[in-house]
């Protein structure tokens, strides 16, 4: 899949313009508008049924769209079938051809390649080496382990040097350890080949670890498109906040808004002034609330003082994780327990249930949902 002129890193590689997809009456994609840049590791993240796989398949050409435009590298894909699109896919099931050897699988896409057999064999060997399967070429594909199938699928797709590599939940079938190892390998591989990777996943941690940017999808719409840090620190709605990691919500009352600053009152935190950028832009439904991550509160031990603000609280639940301890605490004057996490550094005690303590926090780490 070579082309005259291709987008250079940072330029637009894929563009969705108001893409809709219906299955009968079911509205699977509801006006997707987004751009994916060349050389980017981009993730489509969302719960099952949110349309993320459908969107990926519209890029591959396996799924037609009902209206809108899908462009790849500046070309409208409306009448371009899957077999000539400059994309290749790693399927969730890996779709390794069970009747062929590893080398035949990897070289499958080279059938119409004008190069000589020796050159193709060299390309296959190179691709296998890239994914860490050097010397596996002669093996029967159906005898491979899950992790090896995954690597064969990667090599088979990358050997064609596509402009875009599509990965449909490629790690979901692997066990935890293998999954974490493959995450690192995929990141390295992506940097090495410089191809645009688009990953579909329902695993928020996986998306945060691997991606340059993430589109969080709910019910056929993109709820937020941002880099991992923004997504984690400044989710634009309670729904996104809930989906990415753990977030505590404390009911709050908006007192006044002036010059972009918002003054709020929340039981347990008292009166606060927040910056405009801390206010979630999307309406979050039932009343205003203050959101904060478990690690933004810190328990103060004897003699420690807060650098910013502090509140009184009671420990109501303790969960010990080895490296971390998770506490549920009840801030003074509130009823709902809030989740708080502490790293178990040397010499730091684990508190008992019922301990009265103080917690330190900073208004800058809070998000207001309205």
């Amino acid at each position: 899949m070579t082309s005259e002129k291709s987008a250079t890193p940072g330029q637009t590689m894929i563009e969705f313009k108001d893409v809709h997809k219906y299955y009968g009456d079911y509205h699977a994609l509801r006006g997707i508008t987004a751009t994916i840049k060349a050389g980017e590791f981009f993730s489509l993240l969302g719960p099952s049924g949110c349309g993320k796989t459908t969107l990926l398949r519209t890029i591959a050409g396996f799924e037609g769209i009902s209206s809108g435009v899908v462009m790849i590298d500046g070309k409208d894909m409306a009448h371009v079938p899957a077999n000539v699109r400059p994309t290749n896919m790693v399927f969730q099931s890996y779709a390794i051809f069970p009747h062929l050897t590893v080398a035949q699988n990897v070289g499958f896409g080279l059938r119409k390649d004008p190069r000589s057999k020796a050159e193709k064999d060299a390309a296959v060997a190179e691709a296998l080496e890239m994914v860490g399967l050097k010397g596996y070429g002669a093996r029967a594909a159906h005898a491979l382990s899950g992790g090896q199938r995954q690597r064969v699928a990667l090599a088979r797709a990358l050997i064609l040097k596509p402009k875009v590599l599509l990965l449909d939940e490629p790690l979901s079938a692997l066990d935890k350890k293998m999954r974490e190892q493959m995450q690192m390998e995929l990141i390295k591989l992506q940097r090495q080949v410089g191809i645009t990777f688009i990953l579909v996943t329902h695993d928020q941690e996986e998306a945060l670890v691997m991606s340059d940017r993430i589109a969080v999808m709910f019910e056929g719409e993109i709820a937020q498109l941002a880099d991992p840090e923004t997504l984690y620190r400044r989710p634009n709605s309670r729904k996104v906040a809930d989906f990415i990691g753990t977030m505590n919500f404390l009911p709050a009352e908006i007192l006044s808004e002036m010059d972009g600053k918002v003054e709020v009152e929340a039981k347990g935190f008292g009166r606060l002034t927040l910056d405009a950028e801390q206010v979630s832009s999307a309406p979050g439904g039932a009343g205003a609330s203050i959101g904060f991550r478990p690690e933004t509160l810190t328990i103060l031990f004897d003699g420690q003082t807060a650098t910013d603000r502090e509140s009184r609280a009671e420990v109501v639940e303790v969960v010990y994780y080895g490296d971390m301890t998770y506490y549920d605490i009840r801030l003074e004057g509130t009823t709902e327990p809030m989740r708080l996490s502490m790293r178990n550094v040397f010499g730091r005690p684990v508190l008992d249930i019922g301990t009265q303590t103080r917690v330190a926090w900073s208004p800058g780490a809070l998000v207001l949902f309205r």
Partner: protein
Amino acid sequence: MKGGWFRGYTIFYLIFLYAPIVLLPIFAFNNATTVAFPLNGFTTAWFGKLWDDPALHHALKNSLIIGCSAAVISTCLGIFASRASSRYAFPFKTPLMGLIMLPLVMPDIILAVALLTVLLGIGMPLSLFTVILGHVLVCTPFSIAILSAAFQSLDQSLEEAAYDLGETPISAFRLVILPLVLPGIISSLLITFTISLDEFIMAFFLAGNENTLPVYIFGQFRFPQNVPVILALGTILVCLSIALLATAEYFRRRGIAKTGGKDTGGFL
């Protein structure tokens, strides 16, 4: 004791099922024209007689022509139907597939009489061709049952992966789908051939002046002196059927193993 009862029942059932078939070769090698104990002596004369019976050879030739044609046609139809039912969703799919599978449980004689009425009505002369038509009707459901399993055990992404890697729908089918369902196709060919070879009612009604092997055998029972010859022929047919079905089952299982699917039955 519960186990004892079940064991006895099973043994009795198997004897009832297979003892008559075991008698077939016993009397086929018995040196007497009457089928009765005690046995008279060993002979292969009845098998020798099979060699010089032109009517039998003609019937056998007809049966082979019909069997091969019916096997190929019904397997082709089976491929189309199984592919359609496993790959696509279309309106009235379940009732349609049910109607196609119906000849599996419908009495053959009803089908045969109905078909005969229609053929006579449209003025088509009875011949081997009409028998083939009837056999295709009977064999296609078996073919679909075998091939549906083969097509359904295929991961749909395999075909998409082939498109994704640059193949057209036709070349993807040839390079990926066909090799993977080939064991199922062979299994279907062998089983439908066996069914057609054994089939009597359709052939009896639709063959006109022609004879097929089962019709010939039926006719021979009018002559008591020919019974041992028929038993010899029956012995050969039983062995042949077992060999064909065993081969078919071997291919069916190999196909499932190849695609890494789970074995969900089959006919053997």
